[in-house]
């Protein structure tokens, strides 16, 4: 992706608004945006919600950016539907709004979306799990550790992507839980953290202690699940796959806690976002989505030390060099 980036962006104001500024993923995003802004001479201000789900702070941040006369906003929305009217205000005021990581609902409420292809991320780990199990894939018992009961987009895409990659009929691809494949033991929610992962794994083991494959929404949930399995001595029987590619997660792959994980690139997302704002300030060009998709794909790689035939992957050494957090 080549924007006409030169040092002519001096004096251009930009805002980065993240869900929180404590989550390492967003810390990395801020790092990428700050470095790129410095390079181009863009004047960057960063804002964040107090906790994940705090949409009010994000609304206030957008309003500040409009008042500030910024040229563009990069936002990772906490409430993808609720933020839309405020985003519209910003666009009406002539700002370029780019959604990072999390698409708005509807996706075209923003001028552009720079994100990981979460469906692809899911497909990669699904295909890897099926290829690794080989003949055993058809009578595996599969559990899903999802994010929250409200089924946010990212949760649906990763979960359903895994099924597609594994070869499970997903029925409605926008809905988790309507599948009838007998290999599915069940779903439970983790809130994306260790404690939730452990509890959810314990609950699934209550349903069926013969589980052999676990799909997890992110690496903290995977680590929690591993704790639950270790406690009952079943960690050898279960293959855990995940999505994120944070440094602690990649280390867990090295140690064999997680079999494979799909790595995303938050630093890249933010850096490209700043470049796009600089280009827009210069001559009004807006970023174009990736061919055949309705967003700009910032790339995803499968990280594993046990490559499977037919599934492209990088090893943990490379994964550690590219990881975030």
């Amino acid at each position, binding site marked *: 992706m080549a924007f006409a980036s030169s040092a002519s962006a001096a004096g251009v104001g930009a805002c980065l608004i993240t869900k929180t500024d404590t989550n*390492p993923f967003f810390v990395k995003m801020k790092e990428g945006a700050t470095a790129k802004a410095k390079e181009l001479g863009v004047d960057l201000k960063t804002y964040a919600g107090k906790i994940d789900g705090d949409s009010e702070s994000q609304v206030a941040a957008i309003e500040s950016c409009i008042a500030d006369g910024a040229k563009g906003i990069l936002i990772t929305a906490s409430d993808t539907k609720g933020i839309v009217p405020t985003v519209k205000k910003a666009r009406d005021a002539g700002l370029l709004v780019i959604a990072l990581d999390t698409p708005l609902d509807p996706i075209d409420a923003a001028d552009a979306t720079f994100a990981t292809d979460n469906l692809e991320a899911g497909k990669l780990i699904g295909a890897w799990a099926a290829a690794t199990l080989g003949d055993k894939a058809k009578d595996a018992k599969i559990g899903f550790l999802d994010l929250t009961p409200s089924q946010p987009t990212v949760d649906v895409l990763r979960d359903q992507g895994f099924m597609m990659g594994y070869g499970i009929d997903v029925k409605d691809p926008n809905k988790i839980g309507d599948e009838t494949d007998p290999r599915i033991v069940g779903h439970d929610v983790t*809130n994306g*953290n260790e404690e939730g992962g*452990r509890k959810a794994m314990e*609950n699934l083991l209550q*349903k069926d202690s013969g589980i052999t494959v676990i799909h997890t929404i992110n690496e*903290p949930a995977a*680590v929690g699940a591993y704790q639950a399995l270790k406690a009952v001595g079943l960690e050898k029987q279960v293959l855990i796959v995940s999505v994120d590619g944070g440094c602690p997660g990649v280390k*867990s792959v090295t140690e064999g*806690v997680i079999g494979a994980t799909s790595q995303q690139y938050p630093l890249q997302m933010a850096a490209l976002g700043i470049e796009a704002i600089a280009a827009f300030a210069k001559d009004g060009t807006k970023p174009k989505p990736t061919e055949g998709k309705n967003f700009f794909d910032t790339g995803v790689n499968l990280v594993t030390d046990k490559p499977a035939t037919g599934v492209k992957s990088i090893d943990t050494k490379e994964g550690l060099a590219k990881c975030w957090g």
Partner: protein
Amino acid sequence: MAQAQEFEKVLSSSDTSVAAFDEHKSAVKRIQHFLHSTPAAVPLIVLVLSIVIFGIAIGGRFFSSYTLTLILQQIAIIGILGAAQTLVILTAGIDLSIGVIMVISAVIMGNCAVSYGMPAILAVTIGLAAGAACGLLNGLLVAYMKLPPFIVTLGTWNIVMATNFIYSANETIRDTDVDAQAPLLHLFALSFKIGTAVLTLGVIATVVLVLILWYVLNHTAWGRHVYAVGDDQEAAKLSGIQTKKVLMTVYTLAGLIAAFAAWVSIGRNGSISPSAAVTDYNLQAITATVIGGISLFGGRGSILGTLFGAMIVGVVSMGLNMLGADPQWKVLLTGVLIIGAVAIDQWIRKVSA
């Protein structure tokens, strides 16, 4: 005594009893009186009932010793935090900062052991001290500055949560690093199998801690002072209790117990994640306390009830999980239990009114 007058002879056959109350011993009154004198009875009855109901609905898989001990593992941390919360609520206070005190203590223990390479025993001690220090700050503000506990702990909740994120940069300390450098931090993960029942050291610690606190509250002077201060602070002061000292020790002890909960939680979760600060542990602990029959007006309730309260929430969540219900029903039912518990508490109080 010589009879002075002839007519006083009849006195010996007259009624000699003094004024007395008429006792209405209806069955309801008797139940009410029993519940009033044994505050842990209601939550115990509710607990047994919920186990029986889910046992019938789900069958042997729920009623197994494995499932029941798994519930104990899931509620151990809330049980310990609930015990700390109970102490504070008995003094008619409330501690909203208890959950984040636990998280920051865990983060401090982990960083001392893993990042700074201290001996694990020292790391645990520093973590416990940090929890006690947060509690002491609450105690000083409540007892000596005379600020309302709700306001004080609302403030320290925010302060401690932010400090936790600033100090840790929200970096998770990984399970394997803890195992390699400070296995002592995982002490409470040790488990024992008795048939199919699995008890972790964390579960045992929870029960033992509650029993110790029950003994202290009921059979030591300090314990009775806690109840007295909660029942009527002015009266307690007038009867010679050093109310400020009692309040200060209660909040400090609550902080220390929260730090102990941190040690147990490291055992359960393996890794140490500062993000846990956004989980509503404090509200879960208050929930266990309220369902356990501890009166928010102070001075009434048994700490055993709190443990039963935590178990009730655990049984209901696990039961609904195994029935395959939407997780929101769990939340809804918890709300119903809270209001029911307070309603019952008010009804029981009428016995003494």
